[in-house]
């Protein structure tokens, strides 16, 4: 007997917290606001753990029906929740990392204005993200999808008095919406051709279809459109431009939304839709190409950035590219595994960066940091763990997941693998560049380093324990998180990723047993490839050591010798300018000249104004009738009477 898990509580608890804080938080003390926020978020995390405890007793997939929603003829979509291994992984990641970041934010945002608003938005984000993860149909997932976009907009533009933050929020939301448009069209196609958006029903109806190996068909279209949505949400080419700008928001926001959870929604959605993508090899190839190119592209930009958060932002885009590369070679479990480890170490990286920024009093330019190793030891050691994790060194978490992705990619094409290894080298290089610039050498910042305005004049200091505790926990996870092993992880997710795959799938098999057998045969080549990847990471570390510790004058010399290419990289390949010229400016011009001046002002306003003017002119000419002259009144009466008499005569004699 499957117990009732009351899954609906998990999203609704943070929503309650958001509502309470949002409506009444203004009057509460900071302590009360943070207790409420942490309480509800923690409750959601506790419920998630409880669900884990019940997991073995469940018959999967577990569907829980909450309330009816849309019944339109044969189409039905309900408020219903869905739990299987995939959503369980996502649930734990979202609630766990989310809870840690909530704790961290209490310390980070303590001095800021709008405290209650921040936590209301954070809880609201949790609500939407959990809805997204737990939904049992695409429509409810889309609500969560849109909602996290909204929460992201609200949180990026949290300091709304800053113009750049406001613009960044708008950019994020609009670019997201472009992706959502693709997602919507995919949903429409699903409704039209399969009559439902319910996961179970849709995949059940798609399962018997044959894969479209000969040409592009319906499933390819759906797959590509879903990828458009994922590209918008998860910042892949060409819709990645919002993520670096999103760093305008507070650092916990960057950690939670733009590293651990929201941007991974695209990966989750692609993994969830694997039934569709497995039958559309062309779409799958597009996914892999986009992922790979994005990984490389973002890594090259990250190498030249000077803002610590921007480096991490491009790193996030790059790592997301890895996840899509994995999904694109049908290694969905590898992608999700990397999603999990990435949540640990990227979240940690952002939080530690926030700690660093907090320590040096708001400075984000790495060129002005340095030698912080001794001054903020806890931050240093946790960030070191995360940096080694992301670079893919053994035995940290990132090694296992990245290695699995590269291995699966190599089985499809060595081009993917080659680009992946080169990107790993770049990743290692720029992360250790960040590490060296921030923590080693002499402190290059200004002498002020005062903390936020006057209370602590102690100079560079460690963050409070409230901020350090999550760092430590995440550091432990960054070290140990990969030890579950990719094989065990894959086996755990097999029921989800196998269901609906069937036997007639694309040439890359996701069958855990088969891959285990193949592993025995190819273990030697796998070891070789792993060694190459590790070597690339080590090379990156050495180069960073060389350029940023031993010979600090080297970077400038290399930059000078590269000339134009270096300029392009620093300016992010002028992509933002390209978009501005191609899309933004023409749209603004059209909107101004056609819609505003042409239609709104000259047609609509003019109609109203001219109507009013006309009425005034008519009344102006008619008012002369009321002259106060008795005889003119009499004259009008007589004339009118004569008219009436004439009419009556005419009628009478007709």
């Amino acid at each position, binding site marked *: 007997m499957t117990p009732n898990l009351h899954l609906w509580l998990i999203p609704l608890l943070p929503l309650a917290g958001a509502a309470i804080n949002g409506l009444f938080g203004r009057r509460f003390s900071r302590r009360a606001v943070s207790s409420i926020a942490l309480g509800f978020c923690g409750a959601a995390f506790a419920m998630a753990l409880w669900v884990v405890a019940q997991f073995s007793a469940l018959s999967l997939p577990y569907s829980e029906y909450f309330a009816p929603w849309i019944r339109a003829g044969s189409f039905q979509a309900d408020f219903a929740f869905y739990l299987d291994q995939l959503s369980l992984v996502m649930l734990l990641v979202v609630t766990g990392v989310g809870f840690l970041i909530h704790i961290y934010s209490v310390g980070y945002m303590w001095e800021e204005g709008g405290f209650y608003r921040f936590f209301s938005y954070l809880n609201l984000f949790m609500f939407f993200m959990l809805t997204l993860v737990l939904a049992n149909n695409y429509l409810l997932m889309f609500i969560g999808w849109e909602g996290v976009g909204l929460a992201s907009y609200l949180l990026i533009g949290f300091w709304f008095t800053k113009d750049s933050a406001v613009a960044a929020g708008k950019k994020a939301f609009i670019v997201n919406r472009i992706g959502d448009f693709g997602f919507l069209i995919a949903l429409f196609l699903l409704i039209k051709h399969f009559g439902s958006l319910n996961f179970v029903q849709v995949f059940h109806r798609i399962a018997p279809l044959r894969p479209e190996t000969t040409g592009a068909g319906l499933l390819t279209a759906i797959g590509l459109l879903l990828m458009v949505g994922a590209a918008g949400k998860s910042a892949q080419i060409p819709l990645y431009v919002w993520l670096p700008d999103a760093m305008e928001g507070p650092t916990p926001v960057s950690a939670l939304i733009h590293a651990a959870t929201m941007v991974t929604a695209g990966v989750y959605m692609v993994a969830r839709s694997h039934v569709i993508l497995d039958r559309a090899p062309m779409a799958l190839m597009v996914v892999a190409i986009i992922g790979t190119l994005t990984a490389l592209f973002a890594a090259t930009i990250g190498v030249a950035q000077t803002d610590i958060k921007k480096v991490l932002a491009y790193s996030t885009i790059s790592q997301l590219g890895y996840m899509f590369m994995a999904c694109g070679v049908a290694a969905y479990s590898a992608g999700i595994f990397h999603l999990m480890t990435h949540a640990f170490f990227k979240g940690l990286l952002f939080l530690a960066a926030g700690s660093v920024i907090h320590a040096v009093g708001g400075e984000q330019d790495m060129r002005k940091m340095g030698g912080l190793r001794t001054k903020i030891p806890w931050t240093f050691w946790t960030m070191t763990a995360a940096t080694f994790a992301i670079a893919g060194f053994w035995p940290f978490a990132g090694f296992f997941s990245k290695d699995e992705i590269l291995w699966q990619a190599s089985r499809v094409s060595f081009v993917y693998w080659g680009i992946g290894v080169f990107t790993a080298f770049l990743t290692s290089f720029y992360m250790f560049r960040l590490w060296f610039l921030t923590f080693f050498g002499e402190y290059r910042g200004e002498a002020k380093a005062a903390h936020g305005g006057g209370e602590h004049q102690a100079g560079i200091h460690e963050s409070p324990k409230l901020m350090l505790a999550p760092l430590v926990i995440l550091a432990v996870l960054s070290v140990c998180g990969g030890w579950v092993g990719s094989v065990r992880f894959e086996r755990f997710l097999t029921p989800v990723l196998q269901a609906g795959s069937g036997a007639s799938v694309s040439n890359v098999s996701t069958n855990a047993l088969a891959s285990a057998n193949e592993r025995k045969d190819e273990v030697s080549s796998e070891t070789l490839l792993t060694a190459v990847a590790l070597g690339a990471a080590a090379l990156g570390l050495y180069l960073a050591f060389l350029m940023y510790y031993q010979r600090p004058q080297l970077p400038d010399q290399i930059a000078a010798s590269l000339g134009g290419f270096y300029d392009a990289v620093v300016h992010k390949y002028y992509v933002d300018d390209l978009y501005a010229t191609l899309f933004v400016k023409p749209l603004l011009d059209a909107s101004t000249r056609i819609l505003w001046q042409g239609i709104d002002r000259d047609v609509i306003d003019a109609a109203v104004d001219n109507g009013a003017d006309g009425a005034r002119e008519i009344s102006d000419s008619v008012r002369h009738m009321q002259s106060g002259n008795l005889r003119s009144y009499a004259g009008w009466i007589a004339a009118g009477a004569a008219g009436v008499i004439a009419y009556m005569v005419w009628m*009478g004699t007709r």
Partner: protein
Amino acid sequence: MEVHSGIEPMIHLTLFLLFGGICVAGAVNLLAQRHPINSALSLVVVMGSLAGEYLLLGAEFVAAIQVIIYAGAIMVLFVFVIMLLNAGEEERTGGSRVALLFGVPGMLIGTVLMAWVLLERSGTQAVSMGALPGAPKTIGWLLFHDFLLPFEVTSVLVLIAIMGAVVLASHPESVQQRNKER
């Protein structure tokens, strides 16, 4: 005097034209005269000849009250007021263009139209002299039976008119004096 029915229509027509002519002459004179007192007196003449027309139609009661009330009371009132105000002859002032342009021609055209219609198309018969049974007794009966309500209402109307006239025409200074004396 015995009158043959043969020449009765002739007499009727002659008398009709006689009285009618006096009516029209009086009306035109009303328009032509400059001093209002002359106009008022012409109107009295008009009313008198109209009484004659009523008699020709056989409405003796109406003719009687026309002379007694209309010519005898209302016109006298008019003459009183004209003499009281002593306005004098009319002066020439610029009037209204509308009245002259639209009103007068309009009315003339209307009248001509009506006359044409009446002469050509009206289905009226001829009236013989003294056709109406205009005995006052029957009229009184009608007034107090079928038309009782309008009769009573008109009495109220007259009362209101009296009050209105008194209020409107009362000398404001006399009211103030009376207030001061109290």
